């Protein structure tokens, strides 16, 4: 990238102040050290963070894309991606929902998304969006009273640099893997959460985020720190399909649960999966990991229905004695979607416990793989894992795969693994139809029943939405 262009962009920003004239800035495609430095400068970051990003970038240049996952897609040209694009100008946005793709609106309707949220999600430039922001502000005040910090990570870098510096990359190091390294170099924004000692976060951190989420961009970075004895439940994402022109998404989420703390992290992922012929769709390459200290508890719950390709393994490092890790997952693929998802439970402390419940649903011509690692390290005495891994097939052109890895280096550790594969049979559908229940409703009942154990882990209002989401995602998969 030409120095001149860079200078121009940086200068125009300085001239106009930090936040105002940001709308016109989009970097041309390509990634080099100057671009990394530019992003850092654009966000007014301290030197340590710029250097941290540069270190990540240099490592990334030497790394290779992982090829072991059970997914296939054309090679990504990382030099064809633009690594900095600011949010769309209000003037370029749809003026009202009338200007939004009717198909998208129909889906919102089916999911029962409230009108003001529809506007926010579709990026409509109306006051309703600002209403949402003011709602969010109200929440922030309530959180501040409890001492909870909940803000964009870019803001946290300015306001709480010592916390960010201490924990950023402490769970997912810069060079952990190819995509994590890329994210570390160029991350756009994301959320930062800090729960002080002994505080129980007074609300689910969901509603606020649901609105904010639409703007976070393709290289999202989230850091959640639950200090000793604290508790937080966090929900990322939204059941509504989100418009996004970026095909490549590489997010990193780090969770730190200090002694006796508990973090419950729920995800509903519904990025654009591509059309029925498999054209388009998001590549979702995510690194999510948590560290659980003494007696700490980390629970991941995910409902994955979107994206053309998913590569994602929310993991827990059970570092402290008596710590608990959980992974509850529903991954649904339809048409030509591919998912390779699962978890890693790394048992280090004594008497640690982990539970893995994975439900994979494949329909159409899709491919759905569970990949999970359970490691019992030598000093992890008296630890246990229970894994249950179920696959449900709809139709006869889809695939389900299970790759469980078990490494036990401690003779006292107990690792259990159960797996089943079943099919939605014609006889089941016939029984339902004979009782007056149409096929789509029947499939949705069967799939919801299959996922029950995971849905009950979701925050209440989302469990209902998740059920509807599966129904919408499966439309046209039968008959």
């Amino acid at each position, binding site marked *: 990238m030409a120095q001149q262009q860079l200078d121009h962009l940086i200068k125009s920003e300085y001239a106009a102040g930090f936040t105002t004239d940001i709308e016109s800035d989009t970097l041309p495609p390509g990634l080099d050290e100057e671009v990394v430095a530019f992003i850092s400068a654009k966000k007014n970051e301290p030197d340590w963070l710029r250097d941290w990003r540069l270190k990540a970038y240099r490592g990334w240049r030497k790394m290779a894309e992982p090829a072991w996952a059970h997914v296939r897609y054309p090679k990504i040209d990382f030099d064809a991606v633009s690594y900095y694009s600011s949010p769309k100008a209000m003037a370029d946005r749809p003026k009202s929902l009338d200007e939004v793709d009717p198909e998208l609106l129909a889906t919102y309707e089916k999911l029962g998304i409230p009108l003001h949220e529809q506007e926010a999600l579709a990026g409509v430039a109306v006051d309703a969006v600002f209403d949402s922001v003011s709602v969010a502000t109200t929440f922030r005040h309530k959180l501040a009273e409890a001492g909870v910090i909940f803000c964009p990570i870019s803001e946290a870098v300015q306001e709480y640099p010592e916390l960010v510096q201490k924990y950023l990359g402490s769970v997912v190091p810069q060079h952990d893997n190819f995509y994590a390294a890329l994210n570390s170099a160029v991350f756009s924004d994301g959320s930062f959460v800090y729960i002080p000692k002994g505080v129980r976060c007074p609300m689910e951190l969901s509603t606020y985020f649901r609105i904010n989420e639409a703007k976070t961009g393709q290289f999202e970075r989230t850091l959640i720190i639950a200090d000793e004895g604290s508790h937080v439940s966090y929900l990322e994402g939204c059941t509504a399909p989100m418009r996004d022109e970026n095909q490549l998404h590489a997010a990193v989420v780090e969770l730190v649960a200090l002694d006796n703390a508990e973090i419950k992290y729920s995800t509903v992922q519904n990025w654009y999966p591509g059309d029925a012929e498999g054209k388009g769709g998001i590549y979702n390459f995510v690194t999510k990991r948590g560290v659980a200290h003494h007696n700490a508890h980390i629970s991941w719950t995910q409902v994955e229905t979107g994206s053309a390709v998913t590569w994602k393994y929310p993991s827990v490092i059970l570092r402290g004695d008596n710590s608990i890790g959980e992974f509850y997952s529903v991954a649904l693929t339809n048409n030509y979607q591919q998912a390779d998802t699962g978890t890693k439970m790394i048992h280090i402390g004594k008497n640690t416990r982990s539970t893995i419940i994975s439900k994979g649903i494949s329909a159409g011509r899709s491919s759905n793989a569970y990949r999970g690692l359970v490691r019992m390290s030598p000093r992890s005495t008296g630890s246990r894992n229970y894994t249950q891994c179920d696959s449900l097939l709809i139709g006869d052109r889809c695939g389900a795969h299970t790759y469980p890895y078990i490494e036990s280096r401690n003779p006292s550790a107990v690792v259990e693994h159960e797996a089943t594969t*079943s099919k939605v*049979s*014609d*006889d*089941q559908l*016939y*029984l*339902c*139809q*004979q*009782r*007056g*229940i*149409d*096929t789509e*409703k029947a499939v949705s*009942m*069967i799939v*919801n*029943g*299959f996922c*029950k154990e995971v849905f009950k882990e979701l925050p209440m209002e989302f469990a209902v939405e998740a059920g509807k989401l599966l129904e919408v995602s499966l439309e046209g998969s039968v008959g």
Partner: protein
Amino acid sequence: MLSIENLQATVDGKAILKGLNLEVKAGEVHAIMGPNGSGKSTLGHVLAGRPGYEVTGGAVRFNGEDLLQMDTEERAREGLFLAFQYPVEIPGVSNMEFLKAAVDAVRAQRGEEPADSVSFLKQARAICKQVDLDQSFLRRGVNEGFSGGEKKRNELMQMMMLEPRLAILDETDSGLDIDALQVVANGVNALRNPEHAIVLVTHYQRLLDHIEPDFVHVLAEGRIVKSGDKSLALELEAKGYSWLEEEVA
């Protein structure tokens, strides 16, 4: 209520029904008997609209409508119920949820609101008692891990909840002990009234000791070859089917 004229049907390309005629009026109970492979079960599935069962000729009218033009679920919503000989399991879907979906689908067809949950549950519990199933069955998956007898009772329970205009019971008596048989008979007799019709497909006369049919038909080679009153069933019990086959030949 049900009028079958010269019905012909194939399964996997094989002709099973070869010109069957049957007339069932509201309030009547018909028993269809016959040797193995005569097409008894096929008749039930053809009427219910099972995918893969192809009608190749004839006509069926149900409450004056052309039954064969209706989708499987439409037939059910119009009040045609088939109690399955081998009910399939649907793990994870509770009986309660399944029943509610079925009842609401039928109600919707009649332009009614979904049943309110409280009175629905009350009714379901009462019927559980009638068919001698523990209430805990309502929370269990549809037929999931049920014994043969429990599955049959569950079919009966669905029938009683849905109160179909026409109930076809496909060998619901087979494999049942005498107590369970009595439960089935009680269920069917409870449904028996001038608005409803019942078709019992059975191998054995013993069910007819508990449910007295108005008509008995013998199905052989895809046709009804003889019809009579309940005494025909007793005659079959004593003499078997072979004399009939000779008579027809």
